[in-house]
Protein backbone atom coordinates (compact mmCIF):
# COMPACT_ATOMS: atom_id res chain seq x y z
CA UNK A 1 0.00 0.00 0.00
CA UNK A 2 2.73 2.45 0.97
CA UNK A 3 4.63 1.68 -2.20
CA UNK A 4 1.58 2.42 -4.31
CA UNK A 5 1.04 5.80 -2.65
CA UNK A 6 4.69 6.69 -3.27
CA UNK A 7 4.26 5.91 -6.95
CA UNK A 8 1.14 8.08 -7.14
CA UNK A 9 2.89 11.00 -5.44
CA UNK A 10 5.95 10.67 -7.63
CA UNK A 11 3.78 10.59 -10.73
CA UNK A 12 1.92 13.77 -9.82
CA UNK A 13 5.18 15.46 -8.85
CA UNK A 14 6.63 14.66 -12.27
CA UNK A 15 3.50 16.09 -13.88
CA UNK A 16 3.65 19.23 -11.77
CA UNK A 17 7.27 19.85 -12.72
CA UNK A 18 6.60 19.35 -16.44
CA UNK A 19 6.76 23.10 -17.26
CA UNK A 20 10.45 22.99 -16.33
CA UNK A 21 11.45 20.26 -18.75
CA UNK A 22 8.89 20.39 -21.59
CA UNK A 23 8.63 22.87 -24.44
CA UNK A 24 5.54 25.05 -24.65
CA UNK A 25 4.14 22.90 -27.44
CA UNK A 26 4.63 19.62 -25.55
CA UNK A 27 3.25 21.11 -22.35
CA UNK A 28 0.08 22.14 -24.17
CA UNK A 29 -0.26 18.58 -25.46
CA UNK A 30 0.27 17.10 -22.01
CA UNK A 31 -2.28 19.49 -20.54
CA UNK A 32 -4.79 18.24 -23.10
CA UNK A 33 -3.99 14.61 -22.26
CA UNK A 34 -4.50 15.31 -18.56
CA UNK A 35 -7.99 16.57 -19.34
CA UNK A 36 -8.60 13.26 -21.10
CA UNK A 37 -7.19 11.47 -18.05
CA UNK A 38 -9.85 13.14 -15.89
CA UNK A 39 -12.55 11.70 -18.16
CA UNK A 40 -10.83 8.32 -17.99
CA UNK A 41 -11.00 8.29 -14.18
CA UNK A 42 -14.76 8.86 -14.39
CA UNK A 43 -15.22 6.13 -16.97
CA UNK A 44 -13.14 3.77 -14.85
CA UNK A 45 -15.50 4.40 -11.93
CA UNK A 46 -18.67 3.56 -13.84
CA UNK A 47 -17.31 0.93 -16.20
CA UNK A 48 -14.49 -0.76 -14.32
CA UNK A 49 -16.05 -0.63 -10.88
CA UNK A 50 -19.80 -0.47 -11.47
CA UNK A 51 -19.97 -2.34 -14.77
CA UNK A 52 -21.94 0.29 -16.68
CA UNK A 53 -20.52 0.81 -20.16
CA UNK A 54 -21.28 4.38 -21.23
CA UNK A 55 -20.47 5.13 -24.84
CA UNK A 56 -21.69 8.69 -24.49
CA UNK A 57 -19.23 10.47 -22.27
CA UNK A 58 -18.34 12.79 -25.13
CA UNK A 59 -21.62 14.60 -24.44
CA UNK A 60 -20.70 15.43 -20.86
CA UNK A 61 -17.22 16.47 -21.90
CA UNK A 62 -18.71 18.61 -24.65
CA UNK A 63 -21.30 20.28 -22.42
CA UNK A 64 -18.63 21.16 -19.87
CA UNK A 65 -16.49 22.56 -22.65
CA UNK A 66 -19.33 24.57 -24.20
CA UNK A 67 -20.28 26.09 -20.84
CA UNK A 68 -16.74 27.37 -20.38
CA UNK A 69 -16.44 28.37 -24.03
CA UNK A 70 -19.58 30.52 -23.88
CA UNK A 71 -18.03 32.57 -21.11
CA UNK A 72 -14.73 32.88 -23.00
CA UNK A 73 -16.55 33.85 -26.18
CA UNK A 74 -18.50 36.60 -24.41
CA UNK A 75 -15.32 37.92 -22.86
CA UNK A 76 -13.59 37.88 -26.24
CA UNK A 77 -16.50 39.76 -27.86
CA UNK A 78 -16.16 42.64 -25.38
CA UNK A 79 -19.86 43.42 -25.05
CA UNK A 80 -20.66 43.01 -28.75
CA UNK A 81 -22.48 40.01 -30.17
CA UNK A 82 -20.24 36.97 -30.69
CA UNK A 83 -19.00 36.96 -34.30
CA UNK A 84 -20.84 33.82 -35.47
CA UNK A 85 -24.15 35.24 -34.25
CA UNK A 86 -23.68 38.32 -36.40
CA UNK A 87 -22.96 36.11 -39.42
CA UNK A 88 -26.16 34.22 -38.74
CA UNK A 89 -28.19 37.40 -38.47
CA UNK A 90 -28.97 37.13 -34.75
CA UNK A 91 -29.92 40.60 -33.44
CA UNK A 92 -29.83 40.12 -29.71
CA UNK A 93 -27.94 37.84 -27.33
CA UNK A 94 -30.25 34.92 -26.32
CA UNK A 95 -31.20 34.82 -22.64
CA UNK A 96 -29.28 31.67 -21.82
CA UNK A 97 -26.09 33.18 -23.19
CA UNK A 98 -26.48 36.15 -20.84
CA UNK A 99 -26.06 33.83 -17.83
CA UNK A 100 -22.55 33.03 -18.99
CA UNK A 101 -21.25 36.57 -18.49
CA UNK A 102 -20.55 35.36 -14.97
CA UNK A 103 -17.41 33.18 -14.89
CA UNK A 104 -18.39 31.41 -11.66
CA UNK A 105 -21.77 30.53 -13.07
CA UNK A 106 -20.00 29.16 -16.15
CA UNK A 107 -17.68 26.99 -14.07
CA UNK A 108 -20.54 25.69 -11.94
CA UNK A 109 -22.57 25.02 -15.08
CA UNK A 110 -19.66 23.07 -16.57
CA UNK A 111 -19.72 20.79 -13.52
CA UNK A 112 -23.44 20.52 -12.77
CA UNK A 113 -25.19 20.61 -16.15
CA UNK A 114 -23.48 17.34 -17.23
CA UNK A 115 -24.26 15.83 -13.82
CA UNK A 116 -27.93 16.80 -14.09
CA UNK A 117 -28.31 15.50 -17.62
CA UNK A 118 -26.68 12.23 -16.53
CA UNK A 119 -28.98 12.07 -13.52
CA UNK A 120 -32.08 12.46 -15.70
CA UNK A 121 -30.87 9.84 -18.17
CA UNK A 122 -29.84 7.59 -15.29
CA UNK A 123 -33.19 7.84 -13.55
CA UNK A 124 -35.07 7.02 -16.74
CA UNK A 125 -32.88 4.00 -17.51
CA UNK A 126 -31.62 2.58 -14.22
CA UNK A 127 -34.95 2.89 -12.40
CA UNK A 128 -36.53 0.97 -15.25
CA UNK A 129 -33.75 -1.62 -15.06
CA UNK A 130 -32.37 -0.94 -18.49
CA UNK A 131 -28.81 -2.18 -18.46
CA UNK A 132 -25.98 -3.73 -20.41
CA UNK A 133 -25.98 -3.26 -24.15
CA UNK A 134 -29.30 -1.43 -24.10
CA UNK A 135 -27.93 1.24 -21.83
CA UNK A 136 -24.76 1.58 -23.92
CA UNK A 137 -26.84 2.10 -27.04
CA UNK A 138 -29.05 4.65 -25.31
CA UNK A 139 -26.03 6.57 -24.09
CA UNK A 140 -24.80 6.67 -27.65
CA UNK A 141 -28.16 7.89 -28.92
CA UNK A 142 -27.83 10.83 -26.54
CA UNK A 143 -24.58 11.75 -28.29
CA UNK A 144 -26.32 11.80 -31.66
CA UNK A 145 -29.15 13.93 -30.31
CA UNK A 146 -26.90 16.50 -28.64
CA UNK A 147 -24.46 16.75 -31.55
CA UNK A 148 -27.29 17.11 -34.07
CA UNK A 149 -28.86 19.80 -31.92
CA UNK A 150 -25.58 21.71 -31.64
CA UNK A 151 -25.09 21.66 -35.41
CA UNK A 152 -28.68 22.49 -36.26
CA UNK A 153 -28.87 25.47 -33.92
CA UNK A 154 -25.81 27.08 -35.41
CA UNK A 155 -27.00 30.63 -34.78
CA UNK A 156 -26.74 29.94 -31.05
CA UNK A 157 -23.96 27.38 -30.92
CA UNK A 158 -21.57 28.14 -33.75
CA UNK A 159 -22.63 24.99 -35.63
CA UNK A 160 -19.94 22.62 -36.90
CA UNK A 161 -17.23 25.21 -36.32
CA UNK A 162 -17.99 25.23 -32.62
CA UNK A 163 -16.74 28.03 -30.43
CA UNK A 164 -13.25 29.45 -30.82
CA UNK A 165 -11.24 32.70 -31.08
CA UNK A 166 -11.00 33.36 -27.38
CA UNK A 167 -8.74 36.07 -25.98
CA UNK A 168 -8.79 36.32 -22.20
CA UNK A 169 -9.88 34.51 -19.06
CA UNK A 170 -10.53 36.64 -15.94
CA UNK A 171 -8.79 39.39 -17.91
CA UNK A 172 -5.56 37.41 -18.42
CA UNK A 173 -4.45 36.76 -21.98
CA UNK A 174 -4.87 33.10 -22.95
CA UNK A 175 -1.93 33.29 -25.33
CA UNK A 176 0.54 34.19 -22.59
CA UNK A 177 2.84 31.25 -21.67
CA UNK A 178 2.52 32.07 -17.96
CA UNK A 179 -1.28 31.78 -18.07
CA UNK A 180 -0.97 28.48 -19.91
CA UNK A 181 1.40 27.18 -17.19
CA UNK A 182 -1.05 28.22 -14.48
CA UNK A 183 -3.90 26.50 -16.35
CA UNK A 184 -1.72 23.41 -16.72
CA UNK A 185 -1.02 23.41 -12.98
CA UNK A 186 -4.75 23.76 -12.25
CA UNK A 187 -5.37 20.75 -14.49
CA UNK A 188 -2.79 18.68 -12.59
CA UNK A 189 -4.43 19.61 -9.29
CA UNK A 190 -7.90 18.85 -10.64
CA UNK A 191 -6.73 15.45 -11.84
CA UNK A 192 -5.07 14.81 -8.48
CA UNK A 193 -8.19 15.80 -6.52
CA UNK A 194 -10.51 13.74 -8.74
CA UNK A 195 -8.17 10.77 -8.59
CA UNK A 196 -7.91 10.90 -4.79
CA UNK A 197 -11.68 11.29 -4.44
CA UNK A 198 -12.19 8.27 -6.68
CA UNK A 199 -9.63 6.19 -4.78
CA UNK A 200 -11.39 7.09 -1.55
CA UNK A 201 -14.76 6.07 -3.01
CA UNK A 202 -13.49 2.73 -4.23
CA UNK A 203 -11.94 1.93 -0.86
CA UNK A 204 -15.05 2.88 1.11
CA UNK A 205 -18.21 0.85 1.64
CA UNK A 206 -19.75 2.80 -1.23
CA UNK A 207 -17.03 1.34 -3.46
CA UNK A 208 -17.92 -2.15 -2.32
CA UNK A 209 -21.54 -1.47 -3.20
CA UNK A 210 -20.43 -0.41 -6.68
CA UNK A 211 -18.44 -3.62 -7.17
CA UNK A 212 -21.43 -5.54 -5.84
CA UNK A 213 -23.61 -3.91 -8.52
CA UNK A 214 -21.16 -5.13 -11.14
CA UNK A 215 -20.96 -8.65 -9.68
CA UNK A 216 -24.64 -9.18 -8.96
CA UNK A 217 -27.13 -6.36 -9.04
CA UNK A 218 -29.97 -8.70 -8.09
CA UNK A 219 -28.20 -10.09 -5.08
CA UNK A 220 -27.59 -6.54 -3.89
CA UNK A 221 -31.28 -5.76 -4.29
CA UNK A 222 -32.05 -8.66 -1.98
CA UNK A 223 -29.66 -7.27 0.60
CA UNK A 224 -31.96 -4.27 0.86
CA UNK A 225 -30.09 -1.82 -1.38
CA UNK A 226 -31.68 0.02 -4.28
CA UNK A 227 -29.01 -0.31 -6.99
CA UNK A 228 -30.62 2.37 -9.19
CA UNK A 229 -29.86 5.11 -6.65
CA UNK A 230 -26.19 4.17 -6.53
CA UNK A 231 -25.96 3.86 -10.30
CA UNK A 232 -27.51 7.29 -10.86
CA UNK A 233 -25.10 8.79 -8.35
CA UNK A 234 -21.95 7.30 -9.81
CA UNK A 235 -23.06 8.01 -13.37
CA UNK A 236 -23.69 11.68 -12.53
CA UNK A 237 -20.39 11.92 -10.69
CA UNK A 238 -18.50 10.57 -13.65
CA UNK A 239 -20.41 12.93 -15.97
CA UNK A 240 -19.38 15.89 -13.82
CA UNK A 241 -15.75 14.73 -14.03
CA UNK A 242 -16.08 14.78 -17.82
CA UNK A 243 -17.61 18.26 -17.57
CA UNK A 244 -14.66 19.54 -15.53
CA UNK A 245 -12.32 17.99 -18.08
CA UNK A 246 -14.20 19.78 -20.86
CA UNK A 247 -13.91 23.17 -19.15
CA UNK A 248 -10.16 22.72 -18.60
CA UNK A 249 -9.78 21.44 -22.15
CA UNK A 250 -11.34 24.50 -23.72
CA UNK A 251 -9.18 26.82 -21.64
CA UNK A 252 -6.02 25.15 -22.88
CA UNK A 253 -6.93 24.15 -26.41
CA UNK A 254 -9.01 27.24 -27.21
CA UNK A 255 -11.59 25.37 -29.27
CA UNK A 256 -14.61 23.13 -28.86
CA UNK A 257 -16.65 21.79 -31.75
CA UNK A 258 -19.30 19.06 -32.12
CA UNK A 259 -16.80 16.73 -33.78
CA UNK A 260 -14.78 16.61 -30.52
CA UNK A 261 -17.69 15.11 -28.60
CA UNK A 262 -19.18 12.92 -31.30
CA UNK A 263 -19.55 9.14 -31.27
CA UNK A 264 -15.97 8.35 -32.26
CA UNK A 265 -14.35 10.46 -29.52
CA UNK A 266 -16.87 8.97 -27.06
CA UNK A 267 -15.78 5.45 -27.97
CA UNK A 268 -12.13 6.46 -27.90
CA UNK A 269 -12.61 7.54 -24.29
CA UNK A 270 -13.65 4.01 -23.42
CA UNK A 271 -10.63 2.66 -25.32
CA UNK A 272 -8.21 4.68 -23.19
CA UNK A 273 -9.63 3.04 -20.12
CA UNK A 274 -9.60 -0.42 -21.71
CA UNK A 275 -5.96 0.05 -22.65
CA UNK A 276 -4.96 1.40 -19.26
CA UNK A 277 -6.87 -1.26 -17.36
CA UNK A 278 -10.47 -0.73 -16.48
CA UNK A 279 -10.16 -2.10 -12.95
CA UNK A 280 -7.50 0.44 -12.02
CA UNK A 281 -8.04 4.18 -11.62
CA UNK A 282 -4.34 4.86 -11.98
CA UNK A 283 -4.26 2.57 -15.00
CA UNK A 284 -7.03 4.64 -16.59
CA UNK A 285 -4.93 7.81 -16.22
CA UNK A 286 -1.88 6.09 -17.70
CA UNK A 287 -4.04 4.67 -20.48
CA UNK A 288 -5.40 8.08 -21.44
CA UNK A 289 -1.96 9.68 -21.47
CA UNK A 290 -0.19 6.84 -23.27
CA UNK A 291 -2.88 6.28 -25.91
CA UNK A 292 -3.08 9.96 -26.74
CA UNK A 293 0.70 10.25 -26.57
CA UNK A 294 1.01 7.36 -29.01
CA UNK A 295 -1.67 8.93 -31.17
CA UNK A 296 0.19 12.21 -31.49
CA UNK A 297 3.53 10.42 -31.92
CA UNK A 298 2.21 8.20 -34.70
CA UNK A 299 0.31 11.03 -36.37
CA UNK A 300 3.42 13.24 -36.37
CA UNK A 301 5.80 10.54 -37.54
CA UNK A 302 3.64 8.29 -39.69
CA UNK A 303 0.60 10.34 -40.62
CA UNK A 304 -0.61 7.73 -43.14
CA UNK A 305 -0.67 4.71 -40.89
CA UNK A 306 -1.26 6.04 -37.39
CA UNK A 307 -4.89 4.91 -37.27
CA UNK A 308 -3.77 1.39 -38.14
CA UNK A 309 -1.13 1.47 -35.42
CA UNK A 310 -3.71 2.59 -32.89
CA UNK A 311 -6.08 -0.16 -34.00
CA UNK A 312 -3.37 -2.80 -33.76
CA UNK A 313 -2.38 -1.54 -30.32
CA UNK A 314 -5.95 -1.88 -29.18
CA UNK A 315 -6.38 -5.38 -30.59
CA UNK A 316 -3.11 -6.53 -29.02
CA UNK A 317 -4.12 -5.24 -25.63
CA UNK A 318 -7.60 -6.73 -25.73
CA UNK A 319 -6.30 -10.12 -26.83
CA UNK A 320 -3.19 -10.42 -24.69
CA UNK A 321 -3.80 -8.15 -21.71
CA UNK A 322 -7.50 -8.01 -21.00
CA UNK A 323 -6.77 -6.19 -17.77
CA UNK A 324 -4.83 -3.52 -19.64
CA UNK A 325 -1.52 -1.97 -18.74
CA UNK A 326 -2.40 -1.99 -15.05
CA UNK A 327 -3.08 -5.72 -15.21
CA UNK A 328 0.31 -6.21 -16.83
CA UNK A 329 2.06 -4.55 -13.92
CA UNK A 330 0.02 -6.43 -11.35
CA UNK A 331 0.68 -9.72 -13.09
CA UNK A 332 4.44 -9.38 -13.44
CA UNK A 333 5.51 -9.48 -9.79
CA UNK A 334 2.95 -12.21 -9.11
CA UNK A 335 4.19 -14.27 -12.00
CA UNK A 336 7.75 -14.00 -10.79
CA UNK A 337 7.00 -14.97 -7.22
CA UNK A 338 4.81 -17.83 -8.39
CA UNK A 339 7.51 -18.97 -10.76
CA UNK A 340 9.99 -19.23 -7.94
CA UNK A 341 7.52 -20.83 -5.59
CA UNK A 342 5.76 -23.47 -7.61
CA UNK A 343 5.99 -22.67 -11.28
CA UNK A 344 3.73 -20.49 -13.35
CA UNK A 345 0.02 -20.95 -12.79
CA UNK A 346 -2.71 -20.19 -15.24
CA UNK A 347 -3.99 -16.65 -14.78
CA UNK A 348 -7.58 -15.69 -14.28
CA UNK A 349 -9.56 -15.07 -17.40
CA UNK A 350 -11.40 -11.84 -17.81
CA UNK A 351 -13.25 -10.43 -20.76
CA UNK A 352 -13.13 -6.80 -21.74
CA UNK A 353 -16.76 -6.50 -22.71
CA UNK A 354 -19.15 -7.35 -19.92
Amino acid sequence: MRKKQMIYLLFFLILLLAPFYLTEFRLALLGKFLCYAIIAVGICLIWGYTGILSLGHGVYFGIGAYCMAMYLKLEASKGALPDFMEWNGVQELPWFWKLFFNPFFSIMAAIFVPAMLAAVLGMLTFKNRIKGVYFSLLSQAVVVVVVTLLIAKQDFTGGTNGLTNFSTVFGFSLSSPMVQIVLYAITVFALFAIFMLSVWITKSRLGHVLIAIRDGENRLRFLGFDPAVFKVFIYSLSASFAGIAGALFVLQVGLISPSMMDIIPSIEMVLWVAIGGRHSLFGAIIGAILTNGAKSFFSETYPDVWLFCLGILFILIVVFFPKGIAGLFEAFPKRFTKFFEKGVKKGESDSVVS
Partner: protein
Amino acid sequence: MNPILSCHDIIVDFDGFKALQGVNLDVHHGEIRFLIGPNGAGKTTLLDVICGKTKAADGKVMFQGVDLTKRREHEIVRHGIARKFQNPSVFTELTVFENMELSIKQNRNLFSVMKAKLTAEEKDEITVMLERTDLLDRAYDPAGLLSHGQKQWLEIGMQLLQKPEVLLLDEPIAGMTGAEREKTGLFIQEIAEKCAVLIVEHDMDFVRNFAEQVTVMHEGKILCEGSMEEVQQNELVAEVYLGREAKVC
Protein backbone atom coordinates in the same frame (compact mmCIF):
# COMPACT_ATOMS: atom_id res chain seq x y z
CA MET B 1 -50.93 -17.62 17.29
CA ASN B 2 -51.07 -15.25 14.37
CA PRO B 3 -48.93 -16.14 11.39
CA ILE B 4 -45.96 -13.85 10.79
CA LEU B 5 -46.30 -14.18 7.03
CA SER B 6 -49.42 -15.10 5.16
CA CYS B 7 -50.25 -15.39 1.49
CA HIS B 8 -53.86 -15.03 0.40
CA ASP B 9 -55.11 -16.39 -2.91
CA ILE B 10 -51.92 -15.69 -4.82
CA ILE B 11 -52.33 -15.94 -8.57
CA VAL B 12 -49.38 -15.63 -10.92
CA ASP B 13 -49.91 -15.49 -14.63
CA PHE B 14 -46.95 -15.88 -17.00
CA ASP B 15 -48.48 -14.87 -20.32
CA GLY B 16 -51.44 -17.16 -19.95
CA PHE B 17 -49.69 -19.92 -18.04
CA LYS B 18 -51.02 -19.86 -14.48
CA ALA B 19 -47.96 -20.71 -12.41
CA LEU B 20 -49.84 -20.16 -9.15
CA GLN B 21 -53.60 -20.61 -9.00
CA GLY B 22 -54.76 -19.16 -5.72
CA VAL B 23 -52.21 -20.21 -3.13
CA ASN B 24 -52.80 -19.72 0.61
CA LEU B 25 -49.90 -20.20 2.94
CA ASP B 26 -49.23 -19.22 6.56
CA VAL B 27 -45.82 -19.19 8.17
CA HIS B 28 -45.51 -18.87 11.94
CA HIS B 29 -42.68 -17.46 13.98
CA GLY B 30 -39.89 -19.91 14.70
CA GLU B 31 -41.08 -22.73 12.45
CA ILE B 32 -39.24 -24.60 9.73
CA ARG B 33 -41.61 -25.10 6.86
CA PHE B 34 -40.66 -27.12 3.80
CA LEU B 35 -42.26 -26.58 0.42
CA ILE B 36 -42.15 -29.74 -1.64
CA GLY B 37 -43.73 -30.82 -4.87
CA PRO B 38 -42.86 -32.04 -8.36
CA ASN B 39 -41.02 -29.83 -10.83
CA GLY B 40 -43.17 -26.98 -12.08
CA ALA B 41 -45.42 -27.03 -9.04
CA GLY B 42 -44.73 -23.33 -8.44
CA LYS B 43 -42.58 -23.58 -5.30
CA THR B 44 -39.88 -21.17 -6.44
CA THR B 45 -42.51 -18.89 -7.98
CA LEU B 46 -44.18 -18.64 -4.58
CA LEU B 47 -40.88 -17.59 -2.99
CA ASP B 48 -40.41 -15.08 -5.82
CA VAL B 49 -43.82 -13.56 -5.11
CA ILE B 50 -43.11 -13.27 -1.39
CA CYS B 51 -39.80 -11.49 -1.93
CA GLY B 52 -41.13 -9.27 -4.72
CA LYS B 53 -39.16 -10.69 -7.61
CA THR B 54 -42.35 -11.75 -9.38
CA LYS B 55 -45.50 -9.67 -9.16
CA ALA B 56 -48.71 -11.49 -8.37
CA ALA B 57 -51.62 -10.93 -10.75
CA ASP B 58 -53.98 -11.23 -7.82
CA GLY B 59 -53.84 -11.96 -4.11
CA LYS B 60 -52.06 -10.49 -1.13
CA VAL B 61 -48.88 -11.09 0.82
CA MET B 62 -49.23 -9.89 4.40
CA PHE B 63 -46.22 -9.63 6.68
CA GLN B 64 -46.71 -8.56 10.29
CA GLY B 65 -49.81 -6.66 9.29
CA VAL B 66 -48.14 -4.91 6.34
CA ASP B 67 -49.22 -5.51 2.77
CA LEU B 68 -46.08 -6.33 0.80
CA THR B 69 -47.72 -7.15 -2.51
CA LYS B 70 -46.86 -3.89 -4.24
CA ARG B 71 -43.52 -3.21 -2.56
CA ARG B 72 -40.22 -3.39 -4.38
CA GLU B 73 -37.58 -6.00 -3.56
CA HIS B 74 -35.27 -3.88 -1.44
CA GLU B 75 -38.19 -2.52 0.58
CA ILE B 76 -39.43 -6.03 1.32
CA VAL B 77 -35.92 -6.98 2.49
CA ARG B 78 -35.86 -3.96 4.77
CA HIS B 79 -39.13 -5.18 6.33
CA GLY B 80 -37.37 -8.38 7.34
CA ILE B 81 -37.72 -11.02 4.64
CA ALA B 82 -34.43 -12.45 3.40
CA ARG B 83 -34.08 -14.62 0.32
CA LYS B 84 -31.40 -17.08 -0.68
CA PHE B 85 -31.46 -18.16 -4.30
CA GLN B 86 -30.97 -21.61 -5.72
CA ASN B 87 -27.61 -20.88 -7.31
CA PRO B 88 -25.15 -19.47 -4.86
CA SER B 89 -24.99 -15.79 -5.68
CA VAL B 90 -22.30 -13.99 -3.77
CA PHE B 91 -20.15 -11.07 -4.90
CA THR B 92 -17.25 -13.01 -6.35
CA GLU B 93 -14.76 -10.15 -6.54
CA LEU B 94 -15.31 -8.93 -2.99
CA THR B 95 -13.73 -10.76 -0.09
CA VAL B 96 -15.83 -12.93 2.18
CA PHE B 97 -15.56 -10.25 4.84
CA GLU B 98 -16.68 -7.49 2.47
CA ASN B 99 -19.61 -9.63 1.34
CA MET B 100 -20.73 -9.83 4.94
CA GLU B 101 -20.05 -6.16 5.55
CA LEU B 102 -22.57 -5.23 2.86
CA SER B 103 -25.10 -7.68 4.29
CA ILE B 104 -25.21 -6.35 7.82
CA LYS B 105 -28.47 -4.69 8.76
CA GLN B 106 -27.70 -1.02 8.19
CA ASN B 107 -29.02 2.16 6.63
CA ARG B 108 -28.85 1.40 2.95
CA ASN B 109 -29.46 4.84 1.47
CA LEU B 110 -26.78 6.58 -0.53
CA PHE B 111 -25.55 9.05 2.05
CA SER B 112 -25.41 6.62 4.95
CA VAL B 113 -23.41 4.20 2.83
CA MET B 114 -21.07 6.99 1.79
CA LYS B 115 -20.35 7.90 5.39
CA ALA B 116 -20.35 4.34 6.72
CA LYS B 117 -17.28 3.13 8.57
CA LEU B 118 -16.85 -0.38 9.86
CA THR B 119 -17.72 -0.15 13.56
CA ALA B 120 -16.37 -2.44 16.27
CA GLU B 121 -19.83 -3.98 16.79
CA GLU B 122 -20.17 -4.68 13.10
CA LYS B 123 -16.76 -6.30 13.08
CA ASP B 124 -17.70 -8.51 16.03
CA GLU B 125 -20.97 -9.42 14.38
CA ILE B 126 -19.19 -10.43 11.18
CA THR B 127 -16.57 -12.40 13.09
CA VAL B 128 -19.28 -14.36 14.90
CA MET B 129 -21.00 -15.10 11.61
CA LEU B 130 -17.69 -16.13 10.02
CA GLU B 131 -17.26 -18.62 12.85
CA ARG B 132 -20.81 -19.92 12.54
CA THR B 133 -20.40 -20.47 8.82
CA ASP B 134 -16.90 -21.92 9.21
CA LEU B 135 -15.36 -19.26 6.99
CA LEU B 136 -13.09 -17.52 9.48
CA ASP B 137 -9.88 -18.63 7.79
CA ARG B 138 -11.21 -17.57 4.39
CA ALA B 139 -12.36 -14.10 5.51
CA TYR B 140 -9.95 -12.17 3.29
CA ASP B 141 -10.17 -14.38 0.20
CA PRO B 142 -12.32 -13.28 -2.74
CA ALA B 143 -15.66 -15.06 -2.45
CA GLY B 144 -15.22 -16.38 -5.97
CA LEU B 145 -12.52 -18.75 -4.73
CA LEU B 146 -14.79 -20.55 -2.24
CA SER B 147 -16.11 -24.03 -2.91
CA HIS B 148 -19.75 -24.49 -3.85
CA GLY B 149 -20.78 -25.50 -0.34
CA GLN B 150 -18.87 -22.63 1.24
CA LYS B 151 -20.58 -20.17 -1.10
CA GLN B 152 -23.95 -21.55 0.00
CA TRP B 153 -23.01 -21.04 3.63
CA LEU B 154 -21.66 -17.59 2.97
CA GLU B 155 -24.94 -16.69 1.34
CA ILE B 156 -26.96 -18.06 4.23
CA GLY B 157 -24.67 -16.17 6.60
CA MET B 158 -25.23 -12.99 4.59
CA GLN B 159 -28.99 -13.42 4.91
CA LEU B 160 -28.72 -13.97 8.66
CA LEU B 161 -26.68 -10.80 9.13
CA GLN B 162 -29.75 -8.91 7.97
CA LYS B 163 -31.54 -10.25 11.06
CA PRO B 164 -34.62 -11.31 9.10
CA GLU B 165 -37.95 -12.38 10.55
CA VAL B 166 -38.49 -14.80 7.70
CA LEU B 167 -35.76 -16.54 5.76
CA LEU B 168 -36.59 -17.97 2.33
CA LEU B 169 -34.21 -20.71 1.17
CA ASP B 170 -34.32 -22.20 -2.30
CA GLU B 171 -32.69 -25.65 -2.35
CA PRO B 172 -29.95 -24.80 0.13
CA ILE B 173 -28.31 -28.22 0.03
CA ALA B 174 -28.18 -28.70 -3.74
CA GLY B 175 -24.73 -29.85 -4.74
CA MET B 176 -23.53 -30.50 -1.20
CA THR B 177 -21.86 -33.62 0.12
CA GLY B 178 -23.49 -35.75 2.81
CA ALA B 179 -21.53 -34.24 5.67
CA GLU B 180 -22.21 -30.72 4.40
CA ARG B 181 -25.94 -31.48 4.18
CA GLU B 182 -26.07 -32.65 7.77
CA LYS B 183 -24.24 -29.54 8.90
CA THR B 184 -26.51 -27.27 6.87
CA GLY B 185 -29.55 -28.96 8.39
CA LEU B 186 -28.32 -28.36 11.91
CA PHE B 187 -27.50 -24.80 10.95
CA ILE B 188 -31.04 -24.27 9.72
CA GLN B 189 -32.44 -25.65 13.00
CA GLU B 190 -30.27 -23.17 14.86
CA ILE B 191 -31.51 -20.33 12.63
CA ALA B 192 -35.15 -21.28 13.28
CA GLU B 193 -34.73 -20.40 16.95
CA LYS B 194 -34.73 -16.75 15.91
CA CYS B 195 -36.77 -16.60 12.72
CA ALA B 196 -39.16 -18.51 10.56
CA VAL B 197 -37.59 -20.51 7.74
CA LEU B 198 -39.37 -21.41 4.52
CA ILE B 199 -37.42 -23.91 2.43
CA VAL B 200 -37.95 -25.30 -1.05
CA GLU B 201 -36.27 -28.70 -1.21
CA HIS B 202 -36.26 -31.78 -3.40
CA ASP B 203 -34.15 -34.05 -1.26
CA MET B 204 -36.64 -36.25 0.62
CA ASP B 205 -34.17 -37.56 3.18
CA PHE B 206 -33.27 -34.03 4.11
CA VAL B 207 -36.94 -33.06 4.40
CA ARG B 208 -37.64 -36.14 6.56
CA ASN B 209 -34.77 -35.29 8.92
CA PHE B 210 -35.35 -31.62 9.41
CA ALA B 211 -38.94 -30.75 8.54
CA GLU B 212 -41.35 -29.59 11.21
CA GLN B 213 -44.10 -28.61 8.81
CA VAL B 214 -44.43 -29.64 5.20
CA THR B 215 -46.53 -28.01 2.51
CA VAL B 216 -47.02 -29.97 -0.69
CA MET B 217 -47.64 -28.06 -3.91
CA HIS B 218 -48.84 -29.40 -7.20
CA GLU B 219 -49.59 -27.54 -10.44
CA GLY B 220 -49.78 -24.14 -8.83
CA LYS B 221 -51.94 -25.18 -5.90
CA ILE B 222 -51.45 -26.28 -2.32
CA LEU B 223 -52.21 -29.97 -2.13
CA CYS B 224 -51.94 -30.52 1.61
CA GLU B 225 -50.15 -29.40 4.73
CA GLY B 226 -48.96 -31.09 7.91
CA SER B 227 -46.10 -32.97 9.48
CA MET B 228 -44.01 -35.26 7.29
CA GLU B 229 -45.89 -38.38 8.50
CA GLU B 230 -49.27 -36.85 7.82
CA VAL B 231 -48.21 -35.76 4.38
CA GLN B 232 -46.74 -39.15 3.55
CA GLN B 233 -49.97 -40.89 4.46
CA ASN B 234 -52.06 -38.55 2.33
CA GLU B 235 -53.32 -40.49 -0.68
CA LEU B 236 -53.39 -37.52 -3.03
CA VAL B 237 -49.78 -36.79 -2.29
CA ALA B 238 -48.78 -40.37 -2.85
CA GLU B 239 -50.54 -40.27 -6.18
CA VAL B 240 -49.12 -37.04 -7.63
CA TYR B 241 -45.81 -36.89 -5.94
CA LEU B 242 -44.42 -39.76 -3.97
CA GLY B 243 -46.04 -42.21 -6.34
CA ARG B 244 -44.49 -40.59 -9.31
CA GLU B 245 -41.16 -40.47 -7.55
CA ALA B 246 -41.42 -44.17 -6.77
CA LYS B 247 -42.04 -44.88 -10.42
CA VAL B 248 -39.02 -42.85 -11.44
CA CYS B 249 -36.81 -44.64 -8.95
